[in-house]
């Protein structure tokens, strides 16, 4: 996507976000039991979905990098993990607020919350690995391997968290009773709006990562140029 395309997507995201505020706080009815606190669902759900999509993009970019060895795929994986981490952190924060209001605790063993936390830890490990001092190509290969293995583990994490939980009484089953039409429309609009915010964020961060690497190359080339005349003088 070129610059004007990104700007158009960002503008559409901003407008869609504004529309979502109206849908969330005016159009959607207030939930009887939870009241205003239920509105956090309209932010929590899209954050979780787009966070997971980000990690999926990082996995796909990681596979492409390992196969084709092009730096741009590693840059895309880095950008997707960074954006995914932001979304995942916000998912955990909004999920905790929801849990506190709905269930009276900041944290509970819910399969989705647990999966989000494990994902957060896996990709925090990715970011820790990326910050290690090592050659760029080597770092890109290792990070790609972690992105691929991490995403392959996601279904197992979710399944194990659900199996672990399922032997206890399912006190949260009541929430699966379905949404009112207005609520479903608002939730769908929010998912779309967050997608329009997520995409430009990913593209901008991807470009920044590429620019940063090009600047590093220029700086290294200049340093090498500055060193050469000195060596000649010494000779």
């Amino acid at each position, binding site marked *: 996507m070129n610059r004007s395309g990104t700007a158009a997507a960002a503008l559409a995201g901003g407008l869609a976000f504004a529309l979502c505020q109206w849908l969330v706080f005016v159009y959607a009815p207030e939930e009887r039991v939870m009241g205003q606190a239920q509105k956090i669902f309209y932010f929590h759900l899209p954050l979780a979905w787009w966070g997971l999509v980000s990690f999926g993009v990082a996995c796909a970019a990681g596979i492409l990098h390992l196969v084709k060895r092009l730096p741009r795929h590693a840059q895309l994986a880095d950008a997707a993990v960074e954006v995914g981490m932001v979304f995942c952190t916000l998912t955990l924060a909004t999920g905790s607020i929801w849990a506190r209001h709905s269930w009276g605790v900041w944290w509970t063993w819910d399969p989705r919350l647990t999966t989000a936390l494990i994902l957060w830890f896996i990709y925090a490990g990715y970011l820790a690995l990326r910050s290690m001092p090592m050659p760029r190509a080597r770092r890109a290969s290792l990070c790609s391997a972690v992105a691929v293995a991490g995403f392959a583990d996601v279904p*197992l*994490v979710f399944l194990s968290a659900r199996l672990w939980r399922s032997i206890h009484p399912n006190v949260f089953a009541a929430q699966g009773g379905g949404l009112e039409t207005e609520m479903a429309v608002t939730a769908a609009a929010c998912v779309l709006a967050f997608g329009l915010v997520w995409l430009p964020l990913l593209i901008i961060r991807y470009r920044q990562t590429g620019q940063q690497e090009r600047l590093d190359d220029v700086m290294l080339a200049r340093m090498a140029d500055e060193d050469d005349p000195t060596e000649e003088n010494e000779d």
Partner: protein
Amino acid sequence: MLKCALAICRKDLTLILSRNAGIMQALLLGLLLVFLFSLSLNTGDALSPQAAASMFWLATAFCQVLIFNMLYASEELCGARSGLLLLPAPVQSVWLGKSLAGLLLIMAAQCVFIPAVFVFLGQHLADGFLPALAGIVLGDLGMAVSGSLFGALAAGRSGRESLLSIILFPLLVPLLLAGVRLASLGIDPDPLPGDPLRWIGLAAAFDAVFTAAGLLLFPFVYTGDES
């Protein structure tokens, strides 16, 4: 490939067992964890079977990190990585050889941890020891194949123990949950309801996923262009 893998496994086990120091550290760390946790109990109290099983797998997980750091450090310390890479076999044979050596060392360490769990945490053998045994075997296999892949990733880095831990432990969660649930069946006279076969299936799926990941990703992780 299998011949090379077995040769690497034999070489690593000979090196580690002849030096003795590394494996002792891993064993002592696991034993210390079990013992220190037993201090939280009042005299005469017994830990719940699930908590005891969790301590067992936690000790195994820390032991796994030390073992795989040790297995890959032996080449890094003397700059012999390129020797392994020049073997007349696919590079995956290194991963397989280290996995086999790691598996045997983890199982050996567990032979010490299991009695420690019974003695220090006040546990008794129950009827479900067969699923528990299956859980231990599958859990060890999963730890070996994943530890070998990510041990190669952390090899030669500064702070490699902590790096390996933060990358490996979140990935191990499904395996640890399956291991804990199955191990608790072996020491719980009144086990929680649930089908152990589902947990065994989950552990087997983890082993399959990380065996495939190891075979596919290891050549990208363990290369000669190192610094």
